[in-house]
């Protein structure tokens, strides 16, 4: 018996929101593929001596660092053909590892550094069994292999830097699939059905994406932003400061949108930095208040504009590329005073700054340094 599993809960959620024809087609397609697989298996048993038909699967890489099929079953030594289709706007691959070796392989890929691109971000390890090259957006690759002889749960993972923590699935060889909700071999969102996949807008998945919406641990004038590479942050437009950062899926806005706004959006991913009491940039007078003036969209990402002590400050937050993390790019062009940026607790993250001196939770910069500087917050793995 061959079974592959996709996010059926997702499809249902979409349908209840008025699905487009495309989605119904997707459903039919999945059903057809299911029957095809069953038929193929029957054929296999009927003509046992003849070489078995391979198990054919299409796995799509989707935005939000996800594979659309997050687990499937096969028999030991069965032939498998995975057509990996990259529907995302970032590069992805698919690497099948020995049982329990997903993180080890993903982390080894991270360490490839400058050699990574040439090696398709696949490290030279025995733990790597099969892999596709890195696929550009819109391309596909057919990966053919013979399933291992030993029964077990074989992870598949995208080893492109920063993706491996979130973007993975599991191939069950000669083993039954456990209950979905209890399947610890899957990303958390796959286990609980992916809420971000509800059709909430006339467009499909999209990153960058920004909502001004009620958020937990922020003022009522909060901003939530989904960046590429599965990065997300909450910025506070009342206080002009970054509040927290998380990776993985974005937010579930439904508690706010389902009615009259009485509720908070739910953070879906994993939070790894929070500002706490670290306030906005200070310029000159320490008691100065920051005034929010708006934002400009650069490549879909907001560059916030606010004024502190009558000095204009611009802050653009972008994802890091080689690790899970974000970069805050500040511009304070017309300023003659000392600038201090409270950075909060940074001992649990990889914190970097392009200029200035870090002193007691404050990044201190002179006016020239502050004209353009960056700080980055990366996840320690």
């Amino acid at each position, binding site marked *: 018996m061959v079974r592959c599993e996709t996010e059926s809960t997702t499809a249902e959620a979409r349908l209840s*929101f*008025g699905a*487009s024809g495309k989605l119904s087609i997707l459903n039919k397609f999945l059903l057809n593929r299911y029957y095809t697989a069953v038929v193929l298996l029957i054929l296999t048993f009927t003509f046992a001596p003849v070489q078995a038909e391979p198990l054919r699967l299409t796995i799509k890489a989707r935005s939000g660092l996800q594979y659309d099929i997050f687990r499937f079953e096969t028999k030991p030594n069965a032939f498998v053909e995975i057509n990996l289709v990259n529907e995302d706007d970032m590069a992805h691959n698919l690497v099948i590892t020995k049982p329990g070796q997903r993180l080890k392989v993903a982390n080894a890929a991270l360490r490839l550094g400058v050699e990574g691109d040439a090696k398709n971000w696949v490290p030279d390890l025995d733990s790597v069994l099969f892999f596709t090259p890195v696929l550009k957006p819109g391309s596909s690759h057919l990966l053919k292999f013979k399933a291992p002889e030993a029964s077990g749960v074989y992870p598949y993972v995208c080893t492109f830097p920063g993706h491996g923590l979130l973007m993975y699935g599991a191939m069950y060889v000669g083993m039954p699939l456990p209950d979905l909700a209890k399947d610890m071999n899957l990303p958390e969102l796959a286990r609980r059905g992916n809420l971000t996949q509800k*059709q*909430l*807008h*006339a*467009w499909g998945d999209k990153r960058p*994406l*920004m*909502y*001004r*919406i*009620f958020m937990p641990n*922020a*003022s*009522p*004038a909060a901003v939530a932003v989904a960046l590429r590479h599965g990065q997300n942050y909450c910025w506070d*437009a*009342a206080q002009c400061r970054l509040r927290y950062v998380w990776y993985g899926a974005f937010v579930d*806005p439904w508690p706010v*949108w*389902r*009615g*009259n*706004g*009485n*509720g908070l959006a739910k953070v879906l991913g994993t939070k790894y930095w929070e500002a706490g009491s670290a306030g906005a940039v200070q310029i000159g007078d320490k008691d100065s208040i920051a005034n*929010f*003036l*708006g*934002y*400009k*969209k650069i490549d879909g990402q*907001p560059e916030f504009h606010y004024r502190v002590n009558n000095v204009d400050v611009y802050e653009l937050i972008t994802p890091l590329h080689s690790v899970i993390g974000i970069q805050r790019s500040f511009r304070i062009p017309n300023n003659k005073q000392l600038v201090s940026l409270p950075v909060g607790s940074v001992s649990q993250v990889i914190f970097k700054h392009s200029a200035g001196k870090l002193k007691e939770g404050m990044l201190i910069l002179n006016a020239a340094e502050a004209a353009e500087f960056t700080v980055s917050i990366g996840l320690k793995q």
Partner: protein
Amino acid sequence: MKNTKYFLASIVSLVSVVVLRSAGIGDYYSLDNIAMPKGLDSQVGGLDFMPNGRLVACFHRGEVYTYHPKNNEWKLFADGLHEPLGICAISDREVVVMQRPELTKIADLNGDGEADHYQAVFDDFGMTGNYHEFAFGPAKDSRGDFYIGMNLASNGASIRPELRGEFRHYGLSRENFKSKSYKSSSGRMYAATPYRGWVLKISKEGEMTPFAPGFRSPNGLGFDLKDQLFVTDNQGDWLGTSKLFHVQNGRFYGHPASLTWADDWQSGQNPLKVSVKELDAKRTRAAVLFPQGLMANSPTQPITDSTKGKFGPFSGQLLVGEMNRSRIVRVILDKVAGEIQGACVPFYDKAGLSKGSHRFVFGDDGSLWIGQTHLSWVGGQGLQRIRWNGKIPFEIHSMKLLPNGFKITFTKSLKKATSVAEQFQFKRYYYEYRQAYGSPQYGIEKVKVIGSKRLNDGKTVMVYLDKVNPGFVYQLDIKKLIAEDNSALVNPLVCYTLNRMPNGDDKAPHLVRN
């Protein structure tokens, strides 16, 4: 045989009744449903037209789309807004949107059709995070200044741990808002941060003037052709029934929660502890009351018929949306002794109209575009368009107070056989001004027609009544009225809010209970 005769006779009378009743607004106006983008939650927060003829609309989940009526093309203009409830087009590339936290100017500077700059025009007002703190408007006056309405918070929920702006509530400390019993002292609707319950003026240069306090849920701001601002408010605490106010700078419109944010308010004084008589003396009464259950329960945007006749015979009058039923109300204003008061009459009932008509805009061709919403209350969603077909409906056109009655003008000449005394049935009642939620109708009594006169135009009737006093709604139900061309009166109900007599007498002590 006899039975058959009766049967036939009753069929004939039934048919004639049906014929009479079938004079609906749908005979004079046609309605289209506009197809919306797939996947969009099409609850409309605001509607306007850009100079290039594109409709621009904002929606519940923060999107702003443009729509071209020529090719029915929807195009995303902006997104990510927090419950936008009003939009005003400035140019083909710029709109100003009122969203929960901010009045925002949104511009497409690079000209690719999608906005790239979001400028905070005004955000210097408070937020507690309470869901009921909606922000309404902007309405634009002839100078280009904006007017916005700040909803009160509801004690259906408390305040959040983090606020924007100063906290001030003279009945309850911030700490006590966390206790379960906060409702007993917060007031049903409360104003714990600045300018909740106010209409604010934001000049086009960005300067704010606290314009007028006293509102509860001012979900509808609009100007008439004389640059006069009208604002609707919803039945609830301090509002016996829903209202339309003529809003002027410095006046107080009745809901006291907002008063703590007035410059001259005595610090520490809880507005809920001020006597109702004192508040009544301070307030300006509504220009028009919408009797609850009869006319409207949740009025929305007032829009002036600025089409110069392209939309029918009501040029210059106001139309007002209503959330709870498939209705648009028409408002007939009457200036009496220097103050505006007036009447309301159903304008568009059913005939394809959705519930929840929330926002309106007139197209250049004189068609009325209507956006619906519900926000989880009674209402609808989507976009509709009403066009006049050129036939004049037989309607009450205007109603003017006389010292001893009303002068009522219809859109067509009345049939000669009209008996005003029998067919024009008046009654009057009032709504108390009080803290409790809503008010029953009090003092309900029939008012006798003691005389009438038809003017030579054939359309105008002077109706003289035995009791004409300030502080009452005069409700007129007109029975079986037929025009000379045999058309039936489409909307036979009109409610006139009599605040003030032509001699200026506006004393109405009965509105406040002793």
